[in-house]
């Protein structure tokens, strides 16, 4: 494999990682793709190439917050919050046994999704996440704990009583 091909494959992997990170922030495929493309253009214009993963993820995060702030000013209730009601009826829960993970992730806040992604998928420690996001380490740890608790609580369900028909 030539150096050009190797660099291209590295950049593709970086783009994929960026896309997944963007997905954890916006939780929408189209928005995530859009965000990654804009961040890619921004980094290419500034640096001329995609090399640093931290730098690329930070560019995505900054773009997301710029856009999110703009949207928040325009319509403050557009983004999903952690307090969303579970729309799945009890019977469906009983049948499937658990909620769809996508729906569960949608119901938690983007801060929680972000730390979940960075910790569970990218494997960053709380210290690294703190340095990357600029959030104190203690806050990162508490966000991570809350996010995991929410995920667990959403998966846990009360079995439908067998004696009730």
């Amino acid at each position, binding site marked *: 494999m030539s150096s050009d091909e190797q660099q*291209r494959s590295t*950049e*593709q992997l970086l*783009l*994929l990682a960026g*896309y*997944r990170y963007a*997905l*954890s922030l916006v939780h929408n*495929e189209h928005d*995530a*793709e859009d965000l*990654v*493309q804009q961040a*890619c*253009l921004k*980094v*290419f*214009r500034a640096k*001329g*190439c*995609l090399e640093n993963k931290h730098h690329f993820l930070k560019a995505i995060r900054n773009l997301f917050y710029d856009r999110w702030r703009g949207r928040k000013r325009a319509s403050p209730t557009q983004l999903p919050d952690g307090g969303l009601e579970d729309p799945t009826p009890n019977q469906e829960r009983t049948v499937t046994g*658990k909620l769809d*993970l*996508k729906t569960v*992730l949608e119901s938690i806040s983007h801060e929680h999704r972000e730390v*979940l*992604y960075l910790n*569970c*998928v990218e494997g960053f420690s709380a210290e690294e996440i703190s340095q990357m996001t600029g959030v104190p380490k203690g806050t990162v740890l508490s966000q991570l704990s809350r996010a*995991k608790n929410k*995920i*667990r609580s959403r*998966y*846990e369900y009360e079995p439908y009583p067998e004696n009730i028909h």
Partner: protein
Amino acid sequence: MSSDSAESEIRQYYEEATIPDARLDAMLDHGRTAAAVSRWKRVAGIAAVAATFAFVACGYLWIRLNQSDQALKLANSELQRTLEQDQDFVPASTQQGAEFQLVAVRQHGDRCPVCRAAGEKFVSLRDELSDAPIDFTLVNLRDAPEEAKSTLEQFDMGSLVDSRRHKTLIALRSPSGVITELDVTDPSSPVREQVARIIEAEK
């Protein structure tokens, strides 16, 4: 549900999320194009600044040259006017039969500052020494070289002028044929006094 299984499901969920390779390639190509555009923009910006600077510098120099040219033309026209006005002037010495010859030789004409100064000096000397027994001759080497050469030969000054690199000078030739170059730059000894001394010594 255990914590590990939740984490592995989250990992699996995100790892399944992907973009087609063609889309990734398109993104990278757009990025590279944007980087190239950005780079060329920077180059164009630098070139534009350099061109603007060069244009301003050239304009400034052109204005300065134009101004100095105008000043030179003005000075030359004044001198020319003075010379033309004085063409009819006949010094008293000429009428009486001059014994001395004051010759001003100009190498380049009015464009050269040294020649212009020599011309101005010649005119002022002609006014100042109108009562002295001196005949005045102005020789322009550039305007009429043949005529100038014959005039200089007539005063035995041809070899003197030819031997010099800078040929502009003002000299006084006595009736005995002695040629003395006058120093017009020495402020302690005005030309009028130099001429008076030469005339006195000749007597």
